[in-house]
C-alpha cells in the first residue's frame, strides 16, 4: 500500500471496506443456503469452492490491498502458488501409483489362486 496515501484516499477506502464486508456476509449466507439443498457431491464441491474463491479474492484484493500492491509481493504469491500446485501434483502422482500397485497386487494374487 502506498505510503503517500491522502486522507481522501483513506476515506474512499473505508467505503470499499464496508461494501466488501457486506459482500462477504451475503456470500456466506449463500454458501450455507446452497449446502441445505443437499446437491450431489461434485456440483456441491464446485459451488462451495467457487464461492470461497470469490470471498478469498475479496479479502486478498481489498483488505490485504493486493489490488494496489507492488510487483514483488505478487511474485512471492506466485511462487507460493507454484509450490502448492507442485505439492498437490506430487501427492496426486503418489496416489495414482498406489492405485496401480493395488491393481497389480490383486492381479498377481488372483493368478496365484488360479
Amino acid at each position: 500500500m502506498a505510503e503517500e496515501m491522502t486522507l481522501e484516499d483513506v476515506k474512499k477506502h473505508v467505503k470499499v471496506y464496508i461494501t466488501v464486508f457486506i459482500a462477504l456476509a451475503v456470500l456466506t449466507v449463500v454458501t450455507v443456503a446452497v449446502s441445505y439443498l443437499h446437491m450431489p457431491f461434485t456440483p456441491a464441491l464446485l459451488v462451495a469452492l467457487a464461492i470461497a474463491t470469490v470471498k478469498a479474492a475479496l479479502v486478498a484484493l481489498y483488505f490485504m490491498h493486493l489490488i494496489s500492491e507492488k510487483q514483488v509481493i505478487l511474485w512471492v504469491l506466485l511462487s507460493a502458488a507454484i509450490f502448492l500446485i507442485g505439492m498437490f501434483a506430487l501427492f496426486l502422482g503418489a496416489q495414482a501409483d498406489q492405485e496401480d500397485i493395488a491393481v497389480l497386487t490383486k492381479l498377481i494374487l488372483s493368478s496365484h489362486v488360479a
Partner: protein
Amino acid sequence: MQIPYEVTARPDTGVNNAKLGIWLFLASEVMLFGGLFAAYVFLRIGADAWPGMMMYGTETMAERADQILNVPLATLNTMILIASSVTMVMAWASLKMDRFNRYKLYMGLTILLALGFLVVKGFEYGDKFDHHWYASTNNFLGVYFVLTGLHAIHVTGGILVNAYFWGPGTKLWKQGTARDKAHFTNRIEVAGLYWHFVDLVWIFLFPTIYLI
C-alpha cells in the same frame, strides 16, 4: 539492542522490509495449510464413506458432515471472523487518518471478536467431546480437529499480537513524532495482513469441512 527498522520502501524491492517479510511468512503458511488440505483431500478420496463410522462397535454412521458438525455455530463464527477482518482494516485506516481513539476502539473490537470466535469454537469442541468424538475416532474427526485446531492456534497468535498493539505497543505511537506514528501504522498494517490471512484460511475451511 536497536533493531534496524525502516518503513520506507527499499529501492530494489519497492516495498518496506516488514511487508516483504510478512508476505514471505504468509507464503510459507500457504504451504503449511496446503499440505494439510492435501492430506484431507487424499484421506477423503481413499475413504469408503465420509464422515463414516462415528462409534466403534455401534451402528452410528454419518453420511454428511453436517450430521456431526454444528453448521449454524460455524456460520456464526464465519461472520465473526469476517467482521473482525473489517474492524482490523478500519483500525489501520483510523491510524492513517490520525484518529488514535478510533484505532483503539476498532483494535479492541477485533480482539473481542477473535475471543468470541474461540469461545464458539470451545463450545463446538466441547460438544464433540461430550459425544466421545476425538481426533483419534476416525479420519473425518482427525482432519476436523487438526485443521480447525491449527487455525484456532493461529487465531490465538493473532490475539496476542493485536493485544500487544492495543496495549503496551501503543507507546510507540504516543511518542508522537511523525516517524514513530508511521512506524506504528506500519506494524498495524503488517499485523493486519496476518489477521486477514487467518480469515482467508477459514473461508476455505468452513465450506470444505462443514458443508461438503
